[in-house]
């Protein structure tokens, strides 16, 4: 009796293992199931994506979509462990990952799937975020970049009517705000040892006219423009104009500081505009200004390309159905209806009154900023470069080494990495 029971249990266990290993993607009724990996976020939230998926399934009764949502931090790892086997048919990828995922063969090339007319209606930055060496590895889906947010009240109190156009103007305004005791530390940034720091750093360096790598993918980390940008950042910390706690802040902390009315200026992603204007989340409602990132003498204010795209994995067995779903998600119709939560990738929609109405200030700033986007280096070794930069830039910000030393050491390492 006992033996029979034990045997039965072990059979069940074995069966469980076998069942756990196999994935059934084609149902009995001829339905195709595709698995999609999304990110938990504010724009295109879980509810939004599920609602769009439902519409898609109703229109395409033969396809069933199973969306999964994970936080940004877990996304990269999840893609790597599943892409080669096609555990997910569709994955969302962040702009700086495209190069390495393409090189590693995780995602399918889809250059021929996007028509020229469609391509010309999409912001170049959005296309860039899913391309590597002029080939397309996914469909742009989310447009995002960092803007300069400012507290309109504080600026007015300090005697300024307009947000700064250049970084020098920003320093002057910040100094006035500090001197008048309106805010102790008027500027705040997400400068923790994380990708967030490199996003801000890219916005700074490109606004100073610099670049981290040249067109051929050769590192140019220690150029004099980049040095000027990093020196600007460290100096603002030294002068007490930038909040010294920035070196441990991520984007959400920046939002917290800005929303509680402790900072006059902040660099952050688009999502902060709506949340800083939400009375439940913020005490600066109605005092939030949004503007393109300031420039410098002779250089436009550039911001970092934070676009994300949807890619079909190499191992996917239902690539056609997957692409169909991706096209639906990024279609003009869907993007227009959800414009309130995430701004569209389509240029033409920015003239559409329904879209403009969702947030005239954001749309206005976006129109300028999306034409002035800088990509984080689109090289397969970006991950390593980013890690090295995060550490050295932080050391400079903390005053452990000089900006020259920081950039020189990264340049040396980047040359080594690039030549591998």
């Amino acid at each position, binding site marked *: 009796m006992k*033996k029979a029971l*034990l*045997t039965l249990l*072990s059979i069940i*266990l*074995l069966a469980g*293992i076998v069942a756990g290993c196999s994935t059934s993607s084609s149902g009995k009724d001829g339905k195709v199931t595709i698995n999609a990996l999304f990110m938990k976020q504010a724009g295109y939230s879980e509810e939004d994506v599920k609602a769009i998926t439902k519409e898609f399934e109703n229109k395409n009764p033969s396809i069933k979509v199973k969306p999964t949502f994970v936080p940004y931090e877990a996304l*990269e*790892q999840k893609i*790597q462990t599943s892409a080669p086997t096609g555990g997910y048919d569709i994955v969302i990828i962040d702009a700086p990952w495209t190069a*390495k995922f393409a*090189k*590693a063969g995780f995602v399918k090339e889809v250059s021929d799937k996007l028509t020229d007319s469609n391509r010309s209606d999409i912001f170049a930055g959005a296309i860039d975020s899913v391309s590597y060496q002029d080939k397309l590895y996914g469909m742009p889906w989310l447009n995002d970049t960092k803007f300069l947010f400012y507290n309109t009240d504080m600026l007015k109190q300090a005697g300024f009517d307009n947000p700064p156009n250049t970084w020098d103007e920003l320093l002057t305004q910040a100094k006035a705000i500090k001197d008048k005791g309106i805010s102790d530390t008027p500027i705040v940034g997400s400068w*923790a*040892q*994380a990708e967030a720091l490199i996003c801000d750093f890219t916005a700074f360096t490109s606004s100073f006219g610099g670049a981290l790598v040249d067109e051929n993918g050769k590192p140019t980390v220690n150029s004099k423009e980049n040095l000027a940008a990093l020196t600007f950042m460290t100096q603002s910390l030294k002068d007490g104009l930038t909040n*010294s*706690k920035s*070196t*441990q802040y991520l984007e959400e*902390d920046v939002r*917290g*500081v800005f929303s*509680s009315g*402790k900072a006059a200026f902040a660099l952050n992603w688009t999502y902060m505009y709506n949340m800083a204007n939400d009375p439940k989340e913020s005490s600066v409602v109605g005092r939030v200004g949004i503007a393109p990132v300031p420039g410098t003498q002779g250089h436009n204010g550039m911001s970092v390309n934070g676009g994300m795209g949807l890619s079909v994995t190499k191992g996917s067995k239902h690539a056609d159905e997957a692409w169909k779903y991706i096209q639906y998600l990024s279609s003009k119709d869907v993007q227009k209806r959800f414009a309130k939560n995430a701004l569209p990738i389509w240029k033409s929609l920015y003239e559409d009154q329904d879209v403009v109405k969702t947030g005239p200030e954001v749309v206005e700033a976006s129109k300028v900023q999306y034409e002035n986007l800088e990509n984080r280096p689109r090289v*397969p*070794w970006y*991950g*390593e470069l*980013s*890690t090295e930069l*995060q*550490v050295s830039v*932080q*050391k400079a910000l*903390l005053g*452990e080494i000089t900006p020259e030393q920081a950039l020189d050491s990264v340049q040396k390492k980047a040359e080594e990495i690039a030549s*591998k």
Partner: protein
Amino acid sequence: MFYKGEPIMKKQLSEQRFAWLVIAPACVIVFGIVIFPLFTTFIYSLKNMDLTSSQYGQWVWLQNYLELLKDKEFWSTTGRTAYFTGVSLTVEITLGIFIALLLNEDIKGKTFLRTIIIIPWAVPTIVNGAMWKWIYHPEYGALNALLTQLGLIDHYQSWLGSPWLAMNMIIIADVWKMTPLVVLFFLASLQLRNLSIYEAARVDGANIFQRFYHLTIPFLKPTILVIIVVRTMEAFKVFDIIYATTRGGPANGTLTLTYDAYLKSFTNLQYSQGATISYLIAFMILTLTFLYVKVLKSEGAN
């Protein structure tokens, strides 16, 4: 009588077959999630598994190890991990002994106290990390609020903002979580103490410190060694609390070996570097454990 042997043979055979059948699932699981990855990881550490490299998949034998051992950064990461392990272990054992001695006293509500001391240990590490991240928050953290209200600091501090301070703050968070386990160990062995020896010592005029130093410490020595072995293994592999709080920052101030292995594998796509670090961690822990066991044995001989 004549038939007796045969059925027993038969029974034994089927017993054996049955045993195999029953342990088969366990074998599959152990092979699948322990032995196979262990073996693959070792192979990875001998190959170039850098997904973006043009020499992907080629055997490089010990080159990964040599490169890493020559890397200054690797050694400072090792040093940092050792610092974390050493300091948190020392603090946990010191605190553990004193808390255990307190809880061992016959005080009112000791059952209640002994129960709640476990709570920090019962909290999952990742939750603990998230909690401490908020406690240390520079703008609205509880620690800043407490110290300001007590008048100990005059403005809010950035606890995780500089490398050395951040490392020590992480150690405090780890100590808070792991001390209860240590207390539990000590409490268990204190219960087995022979109290008449203490009586005798007291009669002979030994004061409380002498009794502690000459009686309690030697008595707890074996337990201390066990704790050192167990906790070294754990602390050396610290990952989750770093992941939940500082993610290795600021300026690599809290970057430990396992977190480095994670970064190399999953941010840089250098699986071989990650695998090599993992094997070096295992080797270091093995060496430490070997040393501890030696010490334990020679202690036993004395």
